[in-house]
Structure formats: C-alpha cells, structure tokens
C-alpha cells in the first residue's frame, strides 16, 4: 500500500516538473493504518520547510525531502485529524494569503494607522503648549 502511494506521488511529481500540473492525494480516503502512515512519512522524510498554522485548530505542513511534495495535516482543537493529504505543488495554496483577506487586512491596517495617528497629534499639541 505504501509503495502504491509513493508510485502515485512519483507520477504526479513528474507531471508537476514537466507540465506544471499540481496534484493532491487524500490520505484519509485510503485504507491506511497508522503503521502505514508512519512508513509513508519515513519514506518521504522531511525537507527544508515546515509551517505551523493555527486556524480552527492546529495544522502542520512540511515539505518532504522531495521538493514539491508537501505533507499537509489539519487537526481540530482536540488534535483529531480532520484532513491529511499529500500535495504535489510548488507551494500549498493554504500558505498563500488569499485576496479577500489581503483586502480586509489593508483596510484594517489603514484603520489602525488612523486610530494611532489621532492621539499622536494630540500628544504633539500638548508638547507645544
């Protein structure tokens, strides 16, 4: 079973290298035992990048020792695995900031600046008097 998954990873990694096609393997949909998963993690190893996310419970993402092959594990707040997948891509989408969040962030930062700007002027005025 582990070798079968690895062969699929290899095939999709070739597709990424040759045609830029991304792929995802949903590990929860496969009848893999915890021993199988451990073997798979060991075979893929860990590479240069690890990211910890805190969104509705923790998530951990690491690049395996094969660049372009990422292990993505989403947990809920009780540390139960909600989704576990291997993503074959240059960067997993969830690591990028989404445009709607960027728009909200820009507005939020401007609001913060406006809020902080007002007391600073008052403080300067006090200094002058």
């Amino acid at each position, binding site marked *: 079973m582990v070798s079968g998954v690895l062969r699929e990873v290899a095939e999709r990694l070739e597709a990424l290298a040759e045609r830029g096609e991304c792929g995802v393997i949903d590990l929860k949909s496969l009848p893999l035992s915890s021993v199988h998963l451990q073997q798979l993690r060991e075979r893929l190893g860990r590479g240069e990048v690890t990211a910890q996310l805190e969104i509705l419970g923790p998530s951990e993402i690491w690049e395996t020792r094969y660049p372009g092959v990422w292990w993505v594990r989403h947990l*809920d707040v009780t540390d139960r695995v909600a989704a576990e997948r291997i993503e074959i891509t240059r960067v997993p989408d969830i690591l990028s900031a*989404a445009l709607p969040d960027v728009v*909200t962030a820009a507005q939020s930062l401007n609001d913060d600046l406006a809020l902080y700007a007002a007391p600073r002027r008052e403080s300067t005025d006090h200094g002058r008097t």
Partner: protein
Amino acid sequence: MAEPETIGELLSERGISRRGLLKYAAYIASLMALPPWQSNAIADALAAARRQSVIWLSFQECTGCTESLTRSFSPTLENLIFNLISLDYHETLQAVSGEAAEEARRSAMRENKGKYIVVVDGSIPTRDGGVYGAIAGQSMLQILNDTAAGAKALIAVGTCATFGGIPHAQPDPTGAVPLTSLIKDKPIINISGCPPIPEAMAGTIAYLITFGRLPDLDHLNRPKSLFGNTIHDRCYRRSFYDKGLFAKSFDDEGARRGWCLYELGCKGPVTYNSCATLKWNGGVSFPIQSGHGCLGCSEPDFWDKGGFYHPLSTPTGHPTAAVGTAAVAGIGVGAVSALLARRAKRKATSTGEKP
C-alpha cells in the same frame, strides 16, 4: 452596519480567514469523497454562497440524532457548519417556545419559499389519521406536509426518519413510516444510523450548500460517499474474517486476540455506513473496535432482524442465511451478502413486506 450577505463575509466578520475556509473545504472534500483538488473550488463556492435556511422537524424520535450532531462536535472546525446555515426552527435548540416558535417556522417558510431545506428526524405516525403524534395542536403528519410543500429538498436523519426505525418495529402501534413513504415530489436524502455519524449530517448539508444539488445517492437515497461500503469492507478485523479466525464468545481467546465478531452476530457484512473509517466520539473508536459486533443500525428494520447476537448464518428466514457456509470456509463474501440483502430489500419493497 449591513448584515453580511454571503458566508465569506460572515466568516470574515467573525475573524475566520479564507485559510479557515480552505481547511474546512479539505475536510469536507475528504469526508464526502470528492476529488481532493476541488478544495479550492469548494472554498470559493462556500464563500460566495448565502446562508442556507434550515427547518428541523422532530417527530417520533429520542433526540439522539440532535445529540449526535451537537454533542460530538469539537467547537471549531466541524462546528463551522453552524455558520453555513441559518437554523430557523429546531424545537430542542431554539430559545423561543410556544406560538413564537411556530411563528419562526412559518416565517422561515414564507421568506424562503422554495429555497429552504427541511431536516426530519423521527418517523411519522400515520395510523388513525396521525393522532399519535401532535405538536402545537397539529398532527406531525400535517406539519410535515405543510412544511415540505415549500422546501427545496429534505434530509431524513436517523433510522427512524429514513426507514421507520424503532417506532416502526413490530408491532408498530402508531403506523410509523419514514419520510420517503409520505413525500414523493421533493428530493430526499437519507442519512441513516441510530444515531447517524455527525460528520455525515454536517458533510451532506455542506455539500448541498456548496454545489446546490444532491450528492450521488445509493438505492436507499443515502450518499454513496458515506454509505458506499459495508462496515465489513472497511473493518480492521476483516483480515481475521478472511483467515477464518472468529471469536466464539465475548471472553474467549479469539475475542482477546481481536478476531472477527461475525459468529457473535456482527451485522457488518450487510451494513452500509462509515463507522469503521470515521469512527465515533471524535474518532476514538467504533463498536467493533470496542469488542461488540455491529448492530446494523443504519439498515432498514434492523430491530426486527432476528436478534443482535445471532450470526447472519443462523437460519432466521432472512436470505442472508446463505452466507454462513462461505464464512466458515474463510471466503470474503461481503459483496455477496450485501447483494443478497439488497435483493431481499427489493423483493420486500415489491411485495410490500418487511425484508
């Protein structure tokens, strides 16, 4: 401040980023056996969708289905479903009571005519004009007919609503029937189980909101992604079955070694559900892992099938008796027994008998 119009706006207002929605989409894609690369599309669709109005009707039931949906959830990821829906009526969960509660239901029906989803748990009593179950002066039968008329789709949750369940068990004093026996002109999804797995309910609702259509259903109107395999097919004890290693009692050497519970009455080979993969209580275990055979609670008439501790091979008048010989020989017959069960169901349906 204007009310958020879409789920994306609502989540943003509540401090849940698009990453949160992507994580939820990965979870739903896995749960509903959707292609995993569709996660982004699911997240986009959910973000753009409006909250779905849901009217939950409780009839002849024990509230176990609601308990399953609400109590088993961890407070964040799976609970996100409650941000996707507007639960406009639910007798157990709503704050209001009496006439105000009934008005909430009528109001949701008026404002969302043709768009709301009705969730039904519990069977519906029909004998003697439906007098054996009434709420707010109306029979359950009448409430169902009135509420279903303007619904987009209905979801029957739990074995009582899907197949009649325990109220329908012999001698069935109230003439209890499932939803599909009464509503013929609306799409109906059955999510059986006593109770159903909470993720099955939440995942199906999320699918409806995301795609605006029903998931692929089996011959009993159940989502194939959740009811496509038997418990036996995905059971971690299956290898013992294939080797012909069976526990003969609950405290013998075989039971201690974790051998197959088939001969102790396990109904796993004829029961379609996801217990063996999704498990219960936050993924801790499921009945077989805890040492007890499957009761077959997600199948029609599970209560009247001749005893929970009688192996399927025991002659009970049920066609699945034929699987016994093969089991002793250690042959994997899950598919055969499932086929027999389905044939029995078809035959029973065509003759009007209980299978």
